[in-house]
């Protein structure tokens, strides 16, 4: 009897606790809102002049995990920029504090980190993530919580359909696809094989190539996917299929995986003579090094950062590109990659917007939507309907000559 009564009492207590907490919550929430309002008031009164109070900007990159070759240069770039900006007096006198988190390439982690940045660190805007999949995981969330996100990932889906709060700095996949297809058309190539990594980047790339191939009179004879963990043998198998079809005139390999280096090597080994095109994912000299001789002659479309010194002096981007490249390379003793450039652009766009509009989130968003910026990825011209702001001309056709990047001579 006593036992039963105790149980009932316990359950009742639990219920009461829940009910009480419900009520308490509302009160707490109100208090919280009041608190933030008060803080806001103080901020407004003091204005941007409050020296010493850092402006917090969040950053999420895949510093470790499968996509770490994206996140690592991004993180380094951002930390380098932070120091540079603060050394030059910050934004209107306030230093910036860039809080960089590592999502390890994992979507669930990205979600947690976005929450942490918005609710715990109370940042004014977020740059990153490095990967398209991770960006998609927080796209809706950023809109719901009305905070600007400037992604460093390439997929078209990030800005189409448009989310008013989400921007991206890398050139659109479709531009890359169209550049490559145009070059093929010029070279008289009509039948190709598409190899792609079976991850977000490769899957999106395939989509774009398929969408524009017909416009350029190119027929896709084979779609060949490989897993992120693909071995040499797996790729050899795929390329054997390429080799088996004598009517193929070229192959596109679209991925950010190490396969970018293995595919050219295997093609050389197997004696496949058709030209190889790769995506903008190839914009890291380490892939060229890993591919050795076989990398020479690969055609790909990419930002001009990789060939900064070879640009004509009249090029509007040249100064930005050379400065960034030299600063990065002297500091980290490694060659610059386009990925770091995407983060460079993202951070500067946010910083410029804050300079202009202050730290109000909506004001930052509006400022970005009406800004132009000469960055590493090209000349950005944002509008309320174009959240990428780059045109086809932001990309150049590049190739590899004697183990280093060069502009493709048409």
């Amino acid at each position: 009897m006593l036992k039963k009564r105790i149980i009932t009492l316990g359950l009742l207590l639990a219920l009461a606790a829940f009910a009480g907490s419900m009520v308490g919550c509302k009160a707490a929430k109100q208090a919280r809102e009041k608190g933030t309002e008060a803080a806001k008031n103080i901020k407004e009164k003091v204005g941007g002049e409050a020296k010493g109070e850092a402006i917090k900007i969040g950053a999420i990159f895949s510093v470790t995990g499968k996509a770490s070759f994206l996140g690592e240069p991004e993180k380094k770039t951002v930390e380098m920029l932070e120091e540079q900006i603060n050394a030059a007096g910050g934004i209107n006198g306030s230093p910036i504090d860039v809080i960089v988190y590592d999502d390890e390439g994992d979507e669930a982690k990205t979600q947690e980190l976005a929450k942490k940045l918005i609710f715990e660190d109370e940042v004014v805007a977020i740059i990153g993530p490095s990967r398209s999949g991770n960006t998609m995981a927080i796209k809706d969330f950023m809109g719901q919580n009305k905070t600007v996100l400037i992604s460093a990932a390439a997929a078209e889906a990030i800005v189409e359909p448009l989310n008013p709060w989400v921007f991206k700095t890398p050139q659109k996949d479709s531009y890359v696809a169209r550049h490559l297809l145009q070059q093929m058309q010029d070279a008289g190539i009509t039948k190709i094989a598409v190899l792609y990594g079976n991850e977000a980047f490769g899957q999106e790339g395939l989509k774009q190539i398929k969408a524009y191939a017909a416009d350029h009179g190119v027929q896709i004879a084979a779609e060949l996917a490989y897993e992120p963990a693909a071995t040499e043998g797996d790729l050899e198998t795929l390329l054997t299929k390429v080799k088996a079809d004598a009517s193929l005139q070229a192959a596109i390999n679209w991925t950010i995986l190490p396969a970018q280096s293995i595919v050219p090597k295997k093609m050389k080994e197997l004696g496949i003579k058709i030209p190889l095109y790769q995506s903008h994912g190839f914009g890291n000299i380490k892939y060229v090094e890993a591919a050795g001789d076989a990398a020479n002659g690969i055609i790909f479309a990419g930002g001009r950062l990789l060939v900064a010194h070879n640009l004509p002096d009249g090029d509007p981007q040249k100064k930005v590109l050379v400065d960034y490249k030299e600063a990065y390379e002297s500091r980290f003793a490694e060659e610059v990659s386009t990925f770091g450039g995407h983060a460079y652009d993202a951070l500067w766009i946010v910083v410029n917007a804050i300079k202009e509009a202050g730290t109000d989130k909506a004001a930052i968003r509006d400022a970005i939507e009406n800004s132009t910026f000469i960055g590493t990825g090209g000349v950005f011209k944002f509008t309320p309907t174009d959240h990428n702001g780059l045109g086809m001309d932001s990309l150049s056709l590049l190739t590899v000559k004697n183990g280093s990047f060069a502009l493709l001579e048409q």
Partner: protein
Amino acid sequence: MSLLSQIIQFTFSGLANGGTYILVALGLNIIYNATGIINFAQGEFAVFGSFIMITLCMAWGIPAPVAFPITVLALAGIGALFHRTAIAPLKKPSVITMVIITIGGSIFMRGVAMLIWGKYPQRLDPFIDAPPIRFMDAIIKWDTLLVLVIVALVVAALYWFFEKTVTGKAMRACAENREAALLMGINVDRIVLLSFALSAALGAVAGVVYTPGASMEYGRGPYFGLRGFEVAIIGGLGNSVGAVLAGILIGLFETFSAGFLSPTYKEAITLALLLLVLFVKPSGILGKAEVARLKDF
């Protein structure tokens, strides 16, 4: 390129992959035979082997024939260390505990590999730098042939070890019945240590034969591990001859299904084969029914 030369090409790719899988599976078998443990960190041994070889050959410029034994010895040491630090301290491990702890070990080793060798893939020059053999339209690398020879030698050596030497038999006895093995005067602890060292050394061989002309990155371990499990189980856990057959089978099945069916669903198809074997004949393709009954499935 004719169908026949495609088949030849696929066969050699498949055999080269299969050779690596066999070595990983044999490593798994050795530890299983000595302790009844499935080592989920086996794939990491291959990764470590490969990276150490790369460092020795590429960074320090040591010739491959010298670097190879050094790598194998180094991994034997790492295997022994792994046993001493992660496995030996356990007093009465259950299967679940062992599964989890070796998984923990593999995560740990992955972290260490990332810390030491970084995140970018690294490459190793081919062992035999000669023009490949052209046979019909197929290209056969000398390294592929070398892999096959090494695998054959290793398998023969292991067969001899477990069937003909008393140490090999003692190792099997330890897995069967630890207490009885102790009563025979077998130093079970030392035998188990030996099995981990041997197994890690085999993992090193797997990693080394996989890498030339290819590349290695720190996250490859689970891939090796998974393929190793498939081969070990399809061949019958603990059965070396079975592992060899299953390795060849899986290697070929994998390339042919990628080549002629769908490369996208290759992973799913190969694993479905594993499940089928587990459900229908858990003792493996070569497992004798009577042996199966004596083991705990």
